[in-house]
């Protein structure tokens, strides 16, 4: 069962995603902020995929990805952002994050996540 970490400051987006992915048979943890996600990981939680917004209160998306990556280096990321102007930072490329894993809000159909998750995990498993 894929373990999905969703980090988004918008509760309805977190819950919407969680509902959809759980319906797809995935285990989903949600966090409003990156810090709490990190705390939960420190408490021993592990995830396969992290879906996160780039604009987050306090620690922003890029720092968050970096921190989560440092915590769990095999964690893979899908970016779900409401901003079309925010460019991905070049360091992310080194972690295998490129444009095809960036999804712009709003999504008409969340199945793209399911496909992307399967694609990412399929490569691993």
């Amino acid at each position, binding site marked *: 069962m894929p373990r999905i970490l969703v980090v988004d400051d*918008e509760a309805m987006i977190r819950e*919407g995603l969680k*509902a959809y992915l759980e319906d797809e048979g995935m285990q989903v943890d949600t966090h409003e902020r990156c810090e709490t996600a990190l705390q939960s990981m420190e408490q021993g939680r592990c995830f396969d995929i992290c879906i996160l917004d780039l604009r987050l209160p306090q620690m922003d998306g890029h720092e968050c990805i970096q921190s989560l990556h440092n915590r769990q280096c095999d964690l893979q990321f899908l970016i779900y952002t*409401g*901003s*079309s102007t925010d460019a991905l930072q070049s360091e992310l490329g080194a972690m295998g994050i490129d444009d095809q894993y960036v999804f712009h*809000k*709003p*999504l008409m159909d*969340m199945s793209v996540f399911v496909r992307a998750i399967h694609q990412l995990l399929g490569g691993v498993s």
Partner: protein
Amino acid sequence: MDHLSKPEWPIQRLTPLRITVLYAVVASLWMFFSDHLIDFLVDDPGTALQLYALKGWFFILITTLVLYFIIRYNNQILLEAGEVFRRNQELFRDVTESASDWVWEMDDQLRFSYVSERFYELTNMPQSRLIGFKRWEVAGVDTEQDPKWRSHRETLETHLPFRDFSYQSQIPDVSGRRHYFKISGKPVYDKGGRFKGYRGMGTDITRQVMAEEALKESRGTLDRLMSNLPGMAYRCRNDANWTMEFVSEGCKTLTGYSSEGLIGNRDCSYAELIHPEDQAIVWNQVQEALEKHTTFQLSYRIVTAQGSEKWVWEQGQGVFSDKGLLVALEGLMLDATERQQTQNALLALAQNASTMMDDEFYRSCVRDLAHMYDVHYASLGIFADETRQTIHTLALWQNDGWVENVAYPLAGTPCEEIVQGDPQLIPDGVMQRFPDDSFLQREGIQSYFGAPLISSTGEILGLVSVMGINPMAPNRWARPVLGIFANRIALELERRWAEERLHKSEAHNRLIVDTALDAVITINNEGIVSGWNTQAERIFGYPREEALDRKLSEIIIPHQYRAAHEEGLKHFRQSGEGPLLNRRIEITALHQDGHEFPVELSIVPLEHGTEVSFSAFVRDITRRRHAEDEMARLRKYLKNIIDSMPSVLVGVDPEGTVTEWNKQAEELTGVNRDQAHGRPFAEVLPHLEAQMKQVKEAISQRQPLHSERLVAEQNGEVHYSDVVVYPLFTNGTAGAVIRVDDVTNRVRIEQMMVQTEKMMSVGGLAAGMAHEINNPLSAILQACQNIQRRISPDLTKNQELAEQLGIDLTTVGQYFDERGIHHFLDGISDAGARAAKIVSDMLAFSRRSESHFTPSNLDELMETAVRLAASDYDLKKKYDFKRIRIERDYAPDMGQVSCDGTEIEQVVLNLLKNAAHAMSSANIAEPCITLRTRSEGDYACIEVIDNGPGMTKEVSRRVFEPFFTTKDVGVGTGLGLSVSYFIVIEQHAGRMSVDTAPGKGARFKICLPFQHRSGT
């Protein structure tokens, strides 16, 4: 008688000496030869002796015979000579004794030695008083005192011959008469050359002298007679001087010169006295009379010594010798000045018309008439105008004076009858006969004579009349004299009018010839040049003398026209028709140097009786032609420029009437140039009616006036025009040019750009808030999707939970259907999607950096777009893009284009979607999209062509406007093409256009510069 030479005899020529010598020689020769002959022939001495004797006798015989004949001949000659001498002597005596002449001789002392008997008879002077005396001693004159005698004495003393020395003898003859002698003589010399004296003759000329004296006396009588004549008798030679041999004393009175002065042309020749103008006449008339041997009568003028002019009447004739030779002219001259003056006065009366001024002539006529008829009123009048109802007087005489001219109506006056053509003589009672004539009544006119003035063509010009306050006697000259006056005046009027006309036309002609720049050439009807003015010399290069009398066709008419020229002349001679006459024609002429040049020509035929000549007025129009050509060229050039202007250009005059109308104007209005000309511009350009005020204003202010974006509705569409009115001032005439530019497209683009600018600012704003909007949108849409999933009976989790809860999902689904829950959820989803699209489109207007520009292959971009279209979710929902046939027409060797590939992909995708949408909505049977790339200069061009329904002009003009859409509400945002336009124009400095018409599909064209230049 030694004073007479003896006659010479022939025998004297043979002198005795010669005869003797001849005899001796002949005799000697005879003796010598005859002796020798005998000796030779006869040998016998006896016979010889006999022969000698015979010979001697023979000789004696011969010589005797010769001697005899000689003596006999001489005797005869002597006899004859003696007879002649005797007869001569008798003759001499007869002559000297019987003739009136005598012979005289003087010795070397100039003393008379002999004087023949006749002298003694004449003078009855004794010989003793003559012989031995000198002539002047005999004559008893003092040679020192009398010059005539002194010169005679000198002649004699120097031994010179003399002739005709005449003198009067001092000694009277028996009858007491003193004779006049005339003598001649010549000196005599002896054989040694010594002066021997004088020998000569004398004649008694007493009777001759007496006759002469008698003649002189009688001449004096004649002179006296003639001096009492009022003229001068003369005798003159028939030479150029009229050299006078005799003139009578009257000469002084007549000519002012003395008779002596005139005779022999001493002071002056008579010819010089004759007035220079009359000299030829005098000579000719005299010579004519002389030829005919008739008398001549002359009247001529002479100029006297005092310088005054006199008329001379002369009668004379030639004096001829027996042999018929002209010896002299004789005649008489009389002073005819007075008679001539009288005659001249009469002549002047008849002729004065030509020398008097108009008024003077008319006035003198009416005055003369008044005097002649002894009346108070006389008048001369002509018709005042064409109506012939009114008479305008030219001269009016009233009570011994001229009064001011008047005009009076004919009606009711006696004049009315006269102008019908007949003279009227009303000796009395005229006042009663014409009661309506106020003038007659006022002045109390009793009598009236009048005559019409009739021209030579029979036209009545007016009338002349005399009026008296007393009855007039209609005597026998009353009518003819009036008639003569009337005729004279009528003629004069005609002549003056003709002269006036002539004068006017002459003055006119002269003015034309003198001042015109035209060459004036006159030819006769044979085409021979008779007139050639200086301008003609200049234009054609022929001096006048060279052109005159030559055929016009040979000098100035080019070869190719000569035949036609001759033909034209011939035609005119035959028919009198000349189609080229009296109008201006342009033709080619030939210059003297051979070059041809254009001239303007008008030919005027001039008729002189039956003769016709032609005057041609010729103007060199080479320069004008050049100017015209240049003008035409320029005009065409300008017209081309004006026509090629993209603006409507309309020329108008200050009243707004169209004078110019260019091609654009034709295209805009559908009214062609010819139709528009002369019409008010508001009529042909109704939407510019309001501009009339501007036209006037522009002209009055002399400044162009601009009006921008005038709105007019045309074919149900709003049009914008920029109008500029330029005032025009050409050679004082005002007008204006109205320039109209249809700026509808520009206005729309501008409006679009304004919109775009707005969108860009919105874009900037959107970029800032997109995140904030997208999050709630995302929440809505995710929630919506989750709801739809979780009410779906398909999901296992749903069924499990429903079973636990004891709910039948199918029933719940039915319930949701019945209540439209699904529909509402779809509505939320769609609205969310639309909002999301708007946000993303708006974001497109936010400028982006050019860092995304990469060299791209347009073909690949387009293929990507096609792929995206084919897999596009929205598209698939409504129609199948794969149904559309895609034709590719890519330029094979087009290089790469610097652009933002993703953006361009989006643009192309947008076009493809639009095309698919348009074609599907129109249910096109075989939808087809052609994709084409072309390289056009610096631009790489993409064309997306569909065979859909196309667009109307109104639509196509607005497709790039933001929020303009033909799609149903909710189908499109209305931003697609405007965003594409923005991307192409603003971000790539490219071009984007659409070419479409209803039913013809649409072709969108995007051109991008190969090399993108930053900052544009």
